[in-house]
């Protein structure tokens, strides 16, 4: 029995199929990340789990209990939203305690739970402020605190870091990972950012156009993608796709990650010219224009001096390459 079981979930808006049959089991204590491009249905799926949307077909079960007909407040879930969604008229303390108050808990219990959550997130000094008096990062911490207070069976996160700046995003990401370890709770996290997915997840669910493309641990998806979509989506910079025919191979296309392309000034399998160089200090990204394969990305470690329009040669590391068929599926 999983913490969450989805059985053949479908969702239509009018005549448009948004979710086209999703089956998924999330184990207790698991950190499961839904990732995919915008419009793939990941947020809709999360809203169906929360009960904010009704599924057109299929069954949702939380800890083995069917909840299709159960109101959101009775599903014992908590949700953190992208826009924080704090109640503007309540203080931080009341924001965090509202759900318990609605559930009819007594004051001492509410105060205890609020203080405990505030302690975990270092919100103690902010408890009597209103949301308008907080910074973006503080607001999102309050929103996470509001979720913790309820001690839910399921935590749902809907792109919680998208409104934060880069530095705060990394910090909050680490904080969420720490909370997951401390609480041992089941968490479902929606994002379009594959870096968040890779760093947080126990298991990633890659969605495209309302269907699950592949599920698995981050490194499993990275090292063993099932098709060109997953191969291209997981990993940054994106994987290069070479035309196999031009290399004398039987498959349709050859996927090779930027770090597995060797760059040489003297000799190599594919000739090209440097079109752009990005120096990041620890690594250097070289974009090479080739006649047959288009623009390819090469990732070199350390600092390298290449100039634009310089003639270079590329050699793929065949042992690390992935072969794909014409339908996009991996050939094994």
């Amino acid at each position, binding site marked *: 029995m999983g913490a969450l079981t989805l059985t053949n979930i479908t969702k239509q808006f009018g005549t448009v199929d948004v979710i086209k049959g999703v089956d998924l089991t999330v184990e207790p204590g698991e950190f499961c990340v839904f990732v995919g491009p915008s419009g793939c249905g990941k947020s809709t799926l999360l809203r169906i789990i*929360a009960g*904010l949307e009704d599924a057109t077909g299929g069954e949702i079960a939380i800890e083995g209990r069917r909840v299709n007909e159960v109101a959101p407040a009775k599903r014992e879930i908590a949700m953190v939203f992208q*826009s924080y*969604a704090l*109640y*503007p008229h309540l203080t931080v303390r009341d924001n965090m305690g509202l759900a318990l108050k*609605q*559930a009819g808990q007594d004051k001492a219990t509410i105060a205890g739970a609020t203080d405990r959550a505030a302690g975990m997130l270092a919100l103690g000094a902010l408890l009597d402020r209103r949301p*308008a008096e907080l910074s973006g990062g503080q607001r999102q911490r309050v929103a996470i605190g509001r979720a913790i207070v309820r001690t839910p069976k399921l935590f749902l996160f809907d792109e919680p870091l998208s409104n934060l700046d880069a530095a705060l995003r990394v910090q909050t990401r680490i904080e969420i990972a720490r909370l997951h370890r401390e609480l041992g709770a089941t968490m479902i996290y929606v994002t379009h950012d594959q870096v968040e997915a890779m760093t947080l997840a126990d298991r990633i669910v890659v969605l495209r156009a309302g269907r699950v493309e592949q599920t698995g641990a981050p490194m499993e998806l990275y090292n063993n993608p099932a098709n060109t979509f997953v191969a291209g989506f997981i990993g940054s910079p994106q994987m290069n796709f070479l035309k196999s025919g031009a290399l004398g191979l039987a498959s349709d296309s050859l996927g090779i990650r930027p770090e597995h392309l060797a760059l040489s000034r003297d000799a190599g399998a594919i000739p090209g010219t440097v079109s752009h160089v990005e120096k990041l200090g620890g690594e250097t990204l070289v974009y090479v224009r080739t006649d047959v394969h288009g623009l390819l990305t090469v990732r070199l470690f350390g600092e390298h001096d290449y100039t634009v329009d310089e003639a270079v040669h590329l050699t793929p590391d065949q042992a690390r390459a992935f072969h794909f068929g014409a339908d996009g599926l991996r050939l094994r």
Partner: protein
Amino acid sequence: MATRTPISRSIAAHAVLITYTLIALFPVFVIVINSFKSRRAIFNDPLAVPTAETFDLVGYATVLKQGDFFQYFLNSMTVTVASLFFVLLFGAMAAFALSEYRFKGNLLMGLYLALGIMIPIRLGTVAILQLMVASGLVNTLTALVLVYTAQGLPLAVFILSEFMRQVSDDLKNAGRIDGLSEYRIFFTLVLPLVRPAMATVAVFTMIPIWNDLWFPLILAPAEETKTITLGSQVFIGQFVTNWNAVLAALSLAIVPVMVLYLIFSRQLIRGITAGAVK
């Protein structure tokens, strides 16, 4: 940094605005100054401000003596405030339903409710009068409140539903997950965020009601239900018009509606959405 507007353009803009303000305020100004003058002075020089010589409170004295003007004020106030309350309450609730819930006929229902903006309610005067006679509501303030509520609802629903669409879905959903009822979500989360829109609707609804002569004349002309605009008409005769009294009554009639306007305009300006989202 944004380029500053040249000072000449700023002066031109202000000149246009000030001119418009003067034109708009001029009739009000003439009414108020003449209400403090003697009858002879009004006709001798209508644009002169009252001096020690021409100053005369006879108009106000007439208004306060003749007829029960305090009662008229009370009637106008009761009708305006009650209608406003119902327009805002039902308008906001209908707007919330239309903007928040997906149901069959949502769009048609919205169009139907907005249709009243284009059809003047006075076209239905005869039918309304028959209805009020049949239900025994003639010469009651209830009749006026009902008619004005119907008159104000279309615009209120139209404006408020547009504003309510902009209220963050996340906030309402957070409320649902925390176990708030739809009514609490509406009253405690959504309404405070659309307060500026409510104030706009209130001002647009209030002024035609306060100024209306038509329906009080037809539905409630009895002495005890007269409104201030209807009450002022006693001084306008076919042959003789008591201008002092008319001007004094009109000057007095401006005051309450102005107070209401000031209350709502503070809301118009106050930004209260800060901190809810983003």
